[in-house]
C-alpha cells in the first residue's frame, strides 16, 4: 500500500518552511486528516483506537486535537462521536435513541423446509398436510406450518371430502403481495421454470407442475372451512362474544 502521506495534497511537513520544529499540518491537510479519521471510525465494526487512526494519518497529525474537533462538530447532530477509554465510535444521539430503537422485531430468514412447504402449498393448493408430506417425502413439523401461518402467508382453505376430512391449505393475499405476484396464475409454470434455468431439461415427460386453484375456487371434493371447523380443530377459542 502506498503511503497516504504522499497521496494527499498539502501534507508537507513543517520543516519545509524552515526550522527543525515539530511537523505540523497546514489547514487543508488537517481537514483531510479529519475526513480520514471520520471515515475510519464510521467504517469500523469496533471502536477505533487513537493509535490505529494515527497510523493511517500523515505524520505530524495531532490525533487528539483532530478527534476533539470532530467530536464538537457532531455535538449538535443526530449522531455523536464518543470516546471510550482511548477508543472512538459513532453512536446515535442519546435523545434520539427512541427513533432508532423502536420496532426491534428482527426479520428472520425462512428455513429451507418452510420454503419448500410454502412452495408446495402455493403450487398445489388446495393441499392437505398428508399430500405435502407425500411430495416432500418427509414429515412436516408443526413448527413449519406455524411459522408460515404466523408470517401470514398461508391459511386454511377448506376441508377435503375424504375420510377424516383433512384440512386443506392455501396461500393468502399477503403471500401474493410479499412475493410481488398479482395472482396465483403468475407463478411460473414448467416451461417458465425451465426458461429461467431453475429446472434442468432432464425431466421425464410425465412431469408436470400443477396450476394452482385460484383463491375463491374450492376443489371439487372440498368444503369451505367454517368457523365451527376452526373451533372444532382447536384452532380458535370458542366464540363467546363479538370478538
Amino acid at each position, binding site marked *: 500500500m502506498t503511503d497516504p502521506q504522499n497521496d494527499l495534497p498539502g501534507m508537507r511537513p513543517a520543516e519545509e518552511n524552515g526550522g527543525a520544529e515539530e511537523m505540523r499540518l497546514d489547514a487543508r491537510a488537517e481537514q483531510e486528516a479529519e475526513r480520514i479519521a471520520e471515515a475510519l471510525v464510521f467504517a469500523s465494526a*469496533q471502536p477505533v483506537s487513537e493509535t490505529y487512526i494515527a497510523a493511517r494519518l500523515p505524520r505530524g497529525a495531532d490525533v487528539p486535537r483532530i478527534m476533539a474537533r470532530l467530536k464538537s462538530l457532531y455535538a449538535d447532530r443526530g449522531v455523536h462521536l464518543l470516546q471510550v477509554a482511548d477508543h472512538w465510535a459513532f453512536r446515535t444521539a442519546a435523545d434520539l435513541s427512541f427513533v432508532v430503537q423502536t420496532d426491534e422485531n*428482527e*426479520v428472520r430468514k425462512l428455513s429451507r423446509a418452510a420454503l419448500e412447504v410454502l412452495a408446495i402449498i402455493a403450487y398445489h393448493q388446495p393441499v392437505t398436510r398428508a399430500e405435502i408430506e407425500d411430495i*416432500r417425502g418427509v414429515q412436516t413439523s408443526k413448527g413449519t406450518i406455524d411459522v408460515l401461518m404466523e408470517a401470514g402467508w398461508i391459511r386454511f382453505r377448506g376441508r377435503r371430502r375424504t375420510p377424516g376430512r383433512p384440512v386443506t391449505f392455501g396461500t393468502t393475499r399477503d403471500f401474493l403481495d410479499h*412475493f410481488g405476484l398479482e395472482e396465483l396464475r403468475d407463478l411460473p409454470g414448467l416451461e417458465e421454470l425451465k426458461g429461467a434455468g431453475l429446472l434442468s431439461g432432464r425431466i421425464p415427460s410425465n412431469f408436470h407442475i400443477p396450476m394452482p386453484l385460484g383463491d375463491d375456487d374450492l376443489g371439487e371434493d372440498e368444503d369451505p372451512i367454517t368457523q365451527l371447523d376452526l373451533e372444532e380443530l382447536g384452532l380458535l377459542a370458542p366464540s363467546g362474544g363479538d370478538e
Partner: protein
Amino acid sequence: MDPLWQDDGATDRGLHEEALVVDIAGFEGPLDLLLHLARNQRVDLSRISVLALAEQYIAFIERARSIRLELAADYLVMAAWLAFLKSRLLIPQQAKDEGPSGEEMASALAFRLKRLEAMRDAASRLVNRNRLGRDVFARGAPEHIPVEKKSAFEASLYDLLSAYASLRQREAVMQVTIEKRQVWSLSDARLLLARLVGDMVEWTALDHFLLRYMTGPKERATAIASSFAASLEMVREGRLEIRQDGAFSPIYLRQGPNPLTAEILAEMEAGRD
C-alpha cells in the same frame, strides 16, 4: 485497475495473431470467438470485413475438425451459417432466390458483434466503479436494521421458486434419463440456427452448409435421414416450409405459417438436453 475477469481473460485465451492455436476452451461461444477474431482486424467494429471474418472463423473450425477436436454444436452451426453467408456475399443473387441478401446477413452479424462488445464494455465500466465493500464502505457497527413492517419473515420469490424447483427435480431424477444421441438431429440444428440467424422469412438453402459442418463423413447418411425426418416434423407443425426444385437440387427452407418465436425456441432448447 482491478482485473476485469476472474479467469484473467484475454491473455490466456488461446488465440494469438501468429499462432492460431486451436483451443476454444477459453471462449464463451461462437460470438465470443468471432468478436475476438474481429478485434484482431484492429479496426472499429463497424468497419470490419465480414467476409474476412467468416473465412477466418471457418478456417479455425476446419482446423479444429482436422485434429478431431470436439466442438460444441453452437460453433458448428455458426460455421455453417458463415459458409452460407460467404456464398451469399460472393455469388450474385439469383432473381428467384429472394432470401436475405449477403449484405443484410453481414450487417446483422456486425450488429450482434457490436452489441456484444458494447455489453462487454459496459460490464467493465460497471465493475470498475467505486464498489461497496471495496472502495466505499457502509457503517461498520450498525445500530439497527430498519424494518418496514410488512412481514417478520424474509424470503424472495427466487428463494421460493428455486426451493420448489429443486424439490421437484429431486423427485424427478429418480426416473430414467435418455441416452445422448449419436447424431445431430436437424431440429437441434434448426433451433440453434434460428437463434443465430433470426427468422428466415425467405427461401434459404441451408442444408448443404448444415450437413457439411454438422457431421463427419461416417455419420452423414444417418444425419441426412434423421434431419429429413426432423424437418418434416417441423413442416407438419407449421414451423417450416420446404422446397426443392428437382432431384438432388438444393433444399430450400423458410419460416412456416406458425414460426418459432424466441420464447418457443427457448423452451425447446431448455428441453433439449
